[in-house]
């Protein structure tokens, strides 16, 4: 079975079940959103998928290979890259230096065989940062920082990309750009997107899983989800009812 397969993933902090028996199957190239109100356990889920947090139970397979419980580095090597919600960019390094660091890592583990400089240019262009390469990250606009987030994740040469609220806090204009850029990502790249903003979700994803209090409410295509009463109740209600 290729792609990402998650089965019965659970995590509790003390008495609170943050994620309960979470299932997800992601075929190569699929764009999948995980949505849900605050505290639904989205970020916890991401932390487990990217190896920052060990699940209590359940399995995470990538191309049939069990990666559960491995550290972030190992999982990165397995072809999963993530972006962060809280800004952990290299504040005092330039865009160029940041991307170089990411690509250098990919090259070290053999994920990148081609010319580093060329790849750097390609990714920068894809995320429309190619005119900002010399800028210090701290001096970028907020939207540009979010673009750099994605760019850095891409530079890991992943087959599966986990994006943690890439649009959080962006202006409508920045959001539009982001949707456009995400739409333009290579087709063979699987994408898991945690996002509050529905424009982004519906603009980018072809499948949606709705989490509420750590449980999956529904997992289906956008249309179905939009029309699901439970979802309206649980979540979308606020914005779409």
């Amino acid at each position, binding site marked *: 079975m290729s792609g990402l397969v998650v089965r019965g993933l659970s995590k509790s902090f003390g008495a609170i079940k943050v994620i309960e028996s979470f299932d997800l199957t992601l075929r190569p190239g699929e764009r999948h959103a995980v949505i849900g109100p605050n505290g639904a356990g989205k970020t916890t889920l991401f932390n487990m998928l*990217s190896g*920052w947090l060990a699940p209590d139970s359940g399995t995470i397979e990538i191309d049939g290979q069990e990666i559960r419980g491995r*550290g*972030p*580095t190992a999982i*990165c*090597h397995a072809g999963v*890259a*993530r972006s*962060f919600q809280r800004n*952990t*960019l*290299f*504040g*005092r*390094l*330039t865009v*160029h*230096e*940041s991307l*170089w*660091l*990411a690509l*250098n*890592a*990919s090259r*070290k*583990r053999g994920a990148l065989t081609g010319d*580093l*400089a060329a790849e*750097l*240019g390609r990714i*920068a*262009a894809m995320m429309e940062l*190619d*005119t900002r*390469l*010399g*800028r*210090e990250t701290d001096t970028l606009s907020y939207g540009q920082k979010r673009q750099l987030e994605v760019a*850095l994740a891409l*530079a*890991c040469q992943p087959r599966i990309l986990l994006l943690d609220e890439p649009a959080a806090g962006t202006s409508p204009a920045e959001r539009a750009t982001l949707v456009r850029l995400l739409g333009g990502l290579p087709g063979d790249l699987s994408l898991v997107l945690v996002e509050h903003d529905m424009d982004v979700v519906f603009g980018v994803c072809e499948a949606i899983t709705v989490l509420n209090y750590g449980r999956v409410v529904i997992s289906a295509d956008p249309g179905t989800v939009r029309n699901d009463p439970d979802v309206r109740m649980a979540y979308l209600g606020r914005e779409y009812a």
Partner: protein
Amino acid sequence: MSSSMTDQPMPETASKPPPGITGTGLSAGAGFWAILLPVVAVLATVPLLSGGYATVLLIEVMIFGILATGLNFLLGHMGYVSFCQGAFLGCGAYFTAVATLFWGWPVWAAMAAAVAAAGLVALLIGMFVMRTRSIQFLLITLAFGEMFHTAAIKVRATGGDDGMRGIPRLDLSALGLEARDDSVFFVVVLVVFAAAMIALKLLTVSRFGRIVAGIRESETRMRSLGYETWGYRVAAFAVAGLFGGLAGALWAQYARFVNPELMTWQISGEALLMVIIGGTRNFFGPFLGALFFVLAKAWLATVTDAYLIVFGLLFVLVVAFLEGGISGLLGRFLRLGRRQAGRIGGEA
């Protein structure tokens, strides 16, 4: 900081990437030479211009300059506050003393070995202390430093706390020179100093140096990018130790005497003082700090015995209000270029 950023023109497009990033990583940048060469030139004139005392003082400045700049590879470049730089100063000094006095090695060999030894010791300690971060790291290094100090006092073969005396200086008879003469030894130190600065600078802009800078900016991110940061952190620690050892090897020859004091956490603290006062964000900050520290202390001694008060207060003020240290101040006054003012100045 990864001071390539202060010294190199920043490109505006991908077509001409900054040198040293995609290239061999061995270009120090014009700004670096623009500062190093004049500094060396000025220093070189001192023995000619002045009496013995200035010469001696500047020998100390250069030795502490090496010590502090090495420490800054850890502090400014990686963001780790190490409190045991003194231990490596001591390692280098003691190894030089033992190798020359007990084993009769030629001084140059002893020096080389001393540097290697200090680096090796740092590597070993690093494996332990780099299991921690931030505050824990600071405290652990402080404790490890004291362990060395304690050991040096207890070991009777090396004279315990009385230390060892009569350490020879580099034999330059081949050149018809006598290093016992301070102005000759001054030149020796000057050469080593320049070499050390260049080596450190190249390390700073090398791939390794950039990765270290990445760790400073966000270790979380580095790990999610797939870097095993522990190894790099240990290596960076070893680099600091290496140059601490070099400073020690020079100090042993300069003073012709070593004792456990070199390893006290007070010495490590003074090294930190120099780095902070000089400024961590500019490659030459620590050297400036050493210059200021040695001269100011020498001058203060003629005014008051209470130099602790002055330096303590100064340290507090610099940490509180002058993040960029002296170099930051200079950076804002001297026109080192708008582009960098923010970075060097720190407060921007």
